[in-house]
């Protein structure tokens, strides 16, 4: 029994190696280099060999230890169970310590400008992930064009701030409302679609918005982008090194030395607060009738109809609220960068956000955080090895799919309980 299994898994892994060779041979192995103004093929067979061996070996090991029916060797379930158990019992403490850590993070001794920038980026993705979690995780609507709402938020913030000179706190809700309107706009035509069909239409919607931004030159300055977006101020006190005559700035008001870090720290807290609001809102709304209706709609739309739940309104609210948070994140992005162009809102952004939600475990708020730290962190770690970043990204996804096929955290807690829940499993 065991021997037959071994033989079949060796065969299987050799086959995997063959596929890897067919794929990576031409893509990685054959590289063209310019030599004396002529393009020459310079083969890189060694690296192909390494990749093929890694794939075959990896397949062999997963066959042996993970897909093995013989649970004695199954480590997948044990790892999964211990993670889930740990997070179940220590969930509140972990969340609290994560929040405390993120609050004191800017003042830790090792924190520098680079880390702050990454932290801000991660928080933006976390916020987007939480926003999209409403649409994908709760309502079960696979939205591949989420970046469109991010773009709408960023552009409406930028346009209102540039042309009307309104402050951040006025433009932020406006950007959110605009994004929500676009959410409804997308929602109407896709009401009857589900699954793959919905995914394709939303993907097209994302591209449409980007192309619109690219070509509506009078309004969006097209590929040139919008420049000179006002920087955020600390409740009216700007962050400036050389204030105008008689102008109060942040550092003069508080009697501090000017440092460019002040603005970065302010931006960090801004996105932290925005992200936490998104999180609290989602946690709360999940327990309200509308949140339960979203989840019911994800489970079975026909049953929902038979119970008198209005699927149209329910779906549209999910789209609108998800889009609104995308819009908030977008306006933060605009004020942080001070420059936006359609380049920043390509499909790959949507793909990363969807990856965060799906890898995190659909509907899990903590999962989004873990997946963001994992994915964005990984991309950053591999920043110096530019050409291998995507391989690392793909490899990470493969690993998660092997070990946690339903996402890092895939358990769902009921929104309402009749009995006090004893957490012993």
């Amino acid at each position, binding site marked *: 029994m065991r021997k037959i299994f071994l033989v079949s898994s060796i065969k299987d892994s050799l086959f995997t190696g063959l596929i890897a060779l067919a794929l990576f041979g031409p893509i990685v192995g054959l590289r063209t280099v310019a030599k004396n103004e002529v393009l020459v093929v310079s083969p890189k067979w060694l690296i192909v060999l390494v990749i093929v061996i890694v794939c075959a070996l990896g397949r062999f090991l997963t066959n042996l230890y993970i897909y093995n029916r013989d649970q004695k060797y199954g480590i997948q379930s044990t790892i999964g169970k211990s993670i889930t158990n740990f997070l179940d019992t220590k969930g509140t403490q972990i969340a609290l310590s994560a929040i405390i850590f993120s609050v004191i993070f800017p003042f830790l001794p090792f924190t520098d400008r680079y880390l702050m920038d990454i932290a801000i980026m991660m928080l933006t993705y976390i916020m987007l992930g939480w926003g999209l979690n409403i649409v994908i995780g709760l309502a079960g609507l696979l939205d591949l064009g989420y970046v469109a709402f991010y773009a709408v938020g960023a552009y409406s913030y930028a346009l209102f701030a540039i042309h009307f000179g309104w402050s951040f706190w006025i433009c932020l809700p406006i950007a959110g409302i605009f994004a929500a309107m676009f959410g409804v706009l997308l929602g109407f035509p896709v009401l009857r679609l589900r699954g793959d069909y919905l995914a394709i239409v939303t993907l097209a919607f994302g591209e449409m918005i980007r192309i619109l931004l690219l070509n509506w030159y009078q309004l969006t300055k097209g590929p040139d982008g919008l420049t000179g977006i006002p920087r955020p101020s600390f409740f009216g006190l700007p962050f400036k090194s050389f204030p105008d005559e008689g102008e109060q700035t942040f550092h003069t008001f508080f009697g501090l030395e000017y440092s460019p870090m002040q603005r970065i720290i302010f931006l960090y807290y801004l996105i932290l607060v925005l992200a936490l609001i998104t999180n609290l809102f989602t946690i709360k709304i999940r327990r309200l009738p509308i949140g339960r209706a979203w989840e019911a709609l994800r489970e079975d739309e026909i049953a929902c109809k038979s*119970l008198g739940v209005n699927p149209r309104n329910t779906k549209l609210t999910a789209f609108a609220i998800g889009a609104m948070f995308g819009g908030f994140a977008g306006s933060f992005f605009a004020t942080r960068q001070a420059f936006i162009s359609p380049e920043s809102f390509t499909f790959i952004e949507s793909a990363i956000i969807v990856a965060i939600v799906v890898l995190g475990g659909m509907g899990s708020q903590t999962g989004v955080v873990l997946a963001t730290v994992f994915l964005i962190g990984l991309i950053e770690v591999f920043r110096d090895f530019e050409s291998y970043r995507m391989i690392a990204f793909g490899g990470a996804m493969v690993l998660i799919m092997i070990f946690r096929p339903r996402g890092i955290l895939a358990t769902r807690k009921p929104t309402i309980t009749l009995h006090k829940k004893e957490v012993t499993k």
Partner: protein
Amino acid sequence: MTQKLLDVENLTMRFGGLLAIDDLSFSASKDQITSIIGPNGAGKTTVFNCLTGFYKATAGSMFLNKENERLNLKKFSDFKVAQKAGVARTFQNIRLFPQMSVLENLMVAQHNKLMNASGFTILGLFNAPSFVKKEKEAVEISKYWLDIIGLTHRADDDAGDLPYGDQRKLEIVRAMCINPHLLCLDEPAAGLNAKESAELNKLLLFINKEKKTGILLIEHDMSVVMEISDHVVVLNYGKKIFQGSAKETKNSPAVIEAYLGTEE
């Protein structure tokens, strides 16, 4: 004569060239369990789908008589039949929300009431006392029904983890949670064993006689039909071939012919 709860008049449903229901008229009263029986493909489920707004009937009318109004069900599109007219249904293949808890399933059924109480989510976000009170009431109603089907101890488990028979019963009480005037059950006894089937009969009699909710029943299991239905409508090829009490039906030559064929 007491007024009938449901009057179906000359209902016709045509799918292209196929005449699924042909000029069907029958009625159901509030204090009776009305069964619709017939061989496979007779159009029983199509009748349900027309009644509950999933199909739009080609012709004919369906009236629901409440205390002081007469509603034409044809005017309501899909979810509004449940929301506005109070016609609930279950499905031939159980349609619970499998990954939501038993209690959550029952709470979703009370969605419209709770949605209004939560001020379309805005009051709910701030835990307005009126909403909290309404939600507690909804939980009480859920608990009441769970007690009846004996599933209170499993209220927080996923509905998909329940045994088959319990899922059937849960689907029925979930439909009852929308507080319907008419409950349409599509083969509730399918796949149940004798003991579960007997429990189901008890539950249906309770709903009909104690809760005063009219029941329309599609069933293949003749023991259920004969035991609990007060009135039987027999369909074959979309046409009504017989109606009457359970006993009359059993002895009707037309019904026997439809089920067993004629002797040549």
